[in-house]
């Protein structure tokens, strides 16, 4: 075998590039959005009830606030048949006109605030809304959670040097399957279930995309979640992160637990199957929250 001498000149111009293009988007009717995540801090006397009502508009524009005709939260513990022997009510009113933020009505004849002690495992919260001649309904069960054991900054990065790593440690409750939602601030959420660390102390890293400034304080919260809320956040994060491409999962409208009951008379119409396009966006959940703060080094 003779020696092969090869001189090779190869050019490798690897050009994966992005640019802004004009796209015509399909038009659609405005839709109600209910931003109704109630975080329960057990050390406080009352639950901080603040529900934002907005409407969708063109994709390229922000969601304008909207006013609802009525919004009421009912809560109680159902009996073994799933029925409520008694229900408590909290009627909501717009905090400042035009904001679309609804809080327990301060002008009501009685105190409409909800005590944190009423939020116990098993308590069911029901939200009923009337908006533009339509009725909406959501039902959720209070979800408790475990505290954050430790929060510290790491010094690794994953995809680029600008990332900031934080390491969160929690101890899973070993009794049953648990779901968690982490709020890292700045619209960064992460859903987690305990399937692979049941009953263990578990540490994981989260990477902020943009480098945070030294001295900046961040707040990380752990939120309780039932499976539905966990799935909702998981899907929402996925759809928010979805930047197209062949490896992405199919896009989907993330449907929450607030649904349209306008036509549901339980005489002729028992469900929404015949009108799949009538729905509200957003979610109503009442969950326990623990938070930790960290100052970025």
């Amino acid at each position: 075998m003779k020696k092969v001498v090869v001189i090779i000149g190869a050019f490798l111009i690897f050009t994966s590039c992005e640019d802004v293009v004009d796209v015509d988007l399909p038009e659609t009717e405005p839709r109600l959005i209910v931003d109704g995540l109630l975080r329960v801090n057990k050390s406080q006397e009352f639950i901080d009830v603040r529900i934002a009502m907005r409407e969708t508009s063109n994709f390229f524009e922000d969601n304008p606030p909207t006013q609802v005709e009525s919004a009421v939260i009912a809560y109680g513990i159902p009996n073994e048949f799933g029925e409520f022997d008694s229900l408590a009510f909290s009627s909501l009113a717009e905090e400042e006109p035009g904001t679309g933020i609804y809080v327990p009505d301060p002008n009501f004849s009685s105190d409409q605030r909800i005590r944190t002690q009423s939020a116990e495992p098993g308590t069911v919260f029901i939200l009923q809304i009337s908006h533009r001649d339509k009725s909406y309904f959501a039902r959720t069960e209070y979800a408790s959670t475990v505290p954050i054991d430790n929060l510290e900054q790491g010094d690794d990065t994953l995809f680029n040097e600008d990332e900031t790593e934080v390491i969160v440690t929690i101890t899973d409750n070993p009794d049953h399957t648990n779901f968690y939602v982490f709020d890292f601030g700045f619209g960064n959420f992460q859903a987690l279930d305990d399937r692979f660390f049941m009953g263990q102390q578990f540490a994981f890293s989260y990477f902020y995309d943009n480098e945070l400034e030294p001295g900046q304080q961040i707040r990380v919260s752990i939120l309780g979640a039932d499976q539905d809320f966990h799935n909702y956040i998981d899907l929402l994060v996925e759809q928010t992160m979805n930047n197209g491409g062949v490896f992405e999962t199919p896009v989907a409208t993330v449907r929450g637990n607030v649904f349209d009951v306008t036509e549901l008379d339980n005489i002729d119409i028992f469900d929404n199957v015949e009108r799949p396009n009538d729905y509200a966006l957003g979610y109503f959940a009442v969950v326990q929250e623990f938070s930790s703060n960290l100052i970025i080094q």
Partner: protein
Amino acid sequence: MPNRHFVLSLGLLLFGVFAQAQQKFTLSGTISEANSNETLIGVTIAFPELKTGVTTNEYGFYSITLPEGEYTLVVSYLGFQDIRETINLNSNIKRDFNLLEEAEELEEVVVTDDVERLDIRKPQMSVNTMAVQTIKQIPVVLGEADVIKSLLLLPGVSNAGEASSGFNVRGGAADQNLILLDEATVFNTSHLFGFFSVFNPDAIKDVKLFKGGIPARYGGRVSSVLEIFQKEGNSKDFKVNGGIGAVASRLLLEGPIQKDRTAFLVGGRASYAHLFLPLFDVDNKAYFYDLNAKINHKINDRNNIFLSGYFGRDLFSISDRFVNTYGNAVGNFRWNHLFSDRLFSNLSIIYSDYYYGLELDFVGFEWDSGIQNFNLKYDLKHYINDKLQLNYGLNNTYYVFNPGRIKPNSPDSGIVEEQITKKYANENAIYIDIEHQITENLSMQYGLRASQFNRLGQDEFYVYENNNPVEFDPFTLVYQEATPIDTINPGRGGTLKKFFNLEPRISASYNFKGKSSIKASYTRLAQYLHLLSNTSSPTPLDVWTPSGPFVDPQLLDQFAVGYFRNIKDGDYSFETEAFYKDIQNRIDYIDGANLIANKAIERVILNGEARAYGLEFLIRKNEGRLTGWLAYTWSKSEQRTPPRDLRALGIDTGRSDLETGINQGQWYSTPYDKRHDLSVYASYNLNKKWNFNANFIYQTGQPTNYPVGQFEFEGLTAPYYGLRNKERLPDYHRLDVSAILTPKRNERKKVKSEWVFSIYNLYSRRNAASINFRENEDTGRNEAIRTSIFGIIPAVTYNFRF
């Protein structure tokens, strides 16, 4: 009942043939390349006086039985010199032929290959062959000759884009292609997430793609069969060939261990590390390699054995915190045995394995998944006479599916080790396939495959209320995973569910004076495996899952008709085909389905259906300095998942449609639906030194989704959508060129070399791989961002052989 009629008429046809027996003798043998003894596939042995002939099979064997007499026979294989001789057939004769390459002798180099030529008479339709020489000439990205990317230039074949793995045939999904490498099933054909394919072009002998009219000897995938045979090794001389390219280098060694009897072949291909270095500014690696090793041994005139192995891996890592390895491993043993000069047999014992591994250091776990199979098959080819050939055989495959195993990557990781229950299955098939020339003008190929699939027991199996693993909320209109009510442990000895399918295949060809023909075919195929893939094209992480109690096998019915014509003695050919196909039980995923590490995948999938239809045109120029083809396909590919009939599950809703189905039960375009697909390939031989090639591709943009609006929840802004795949990306087109320089050879030197200069995407079209939407950080407004993968890419490859 129709099946019984079919068997009956089959018997009648056979009887008719046997009845006319008379004094006949058999001519049989093997046809090889003279300098290497490499057997040649598809060589024609024609008997002009009788207007009959035969072609060599996958192992170079031929056999033909004719009445006693003296005949002229012509052995021809384009690119090789014809052999013409007179033979006196007065006894059974065994005759091997060695063909010499034409280029060795002739002044003018004619680079055409017989295998791509149109066979007017054969009933086989919807089949495309591609010569290895053509694959090496077609300009491709970064100059890395690629089987799969070359196939995309054929009518009816497309893929989901530049960085996507697999290919789609006639509107079928990528997991519906049966890919056979030396008879062994290959589960993943891509390197580097689809930029390149796993086949080393130097090691390949023959490539054949069946898009329809699939003969009964194949089964298990509903869309197509891609059959690739690799070289067996040169049993005359020691040879080396290789190449150095912009992406990878190749080296292939072959030679005799015992001259004319035992030969080996060892090949390797490896890419350079850090291929994607420019993509991220952190330490990363991305590379792949392939190894091929083969030995063949001729025991005697009646027995040949072959041992071969393939091993390929991809490695992709980002700063050691994310490490990803995957690839195929295939080992097989084959034994060719001649029972008589008319009965050829091949026994294959095959092990094939696909492995996927992932380590995520920042979460503290390692993950692996994969599929293994053990395949035993026995195929016989029975050459009854010049009008009739029977192919029959049996096939057994045992599968082990590993949906995933997770384990901690270090002692201080909080991860608990878990093996997601492995699944097991056994697939059996027997078939008979008859190639029958009924009259001079009419020939048929018909057969039947009986397949049986046995989903074996496993350690843990969930039981659901009403046997329904997917629940539907009729208020929020969301499909949800049901909660199991019990777990049973059937064990591997038992059976969870059995399926049996009869798959008739029939195709017919009627030819007019041997110049043109009309062909028609019907194919039924069953596919028992499903690739769980929720993305536009498969990813290496996708896992295969067997049919079982909740997932039914995919069943295809395909009808095709075509018109075929050779013009000017085959200098040009024209073919057109129309097809319609319908697939039952195509699985679809509920919104937000999590397919990875899902313990019970039945909770996120529903059985839907798919259909595709289209029209294909192919015009080829086969002779002269300028050769090439123009292919155009019009097609439509859709799927839907209508509401289930809950009453069938025993759920009494008082109504039958208490569900919406996926996408509101409506038909939607599959991600690989391309309405128009045009490819032109041309190759021009200027002289012995220079060869020029070009291809142009135009395709309708891929279906996609654009948001109809957005909503805010807790500071997260998410888009929302209307019905699926209503929009399309901009049309795709590009032009690639290459020039091949073969420097004049110094007679004293044995090294032959060539330079391949190529430019991919010559006019640097920014084809959209995707269009997505995000907020502009400066203006706070949403904007549409187009991502395009390859701009203009020049490359140089150096190939050598000695």
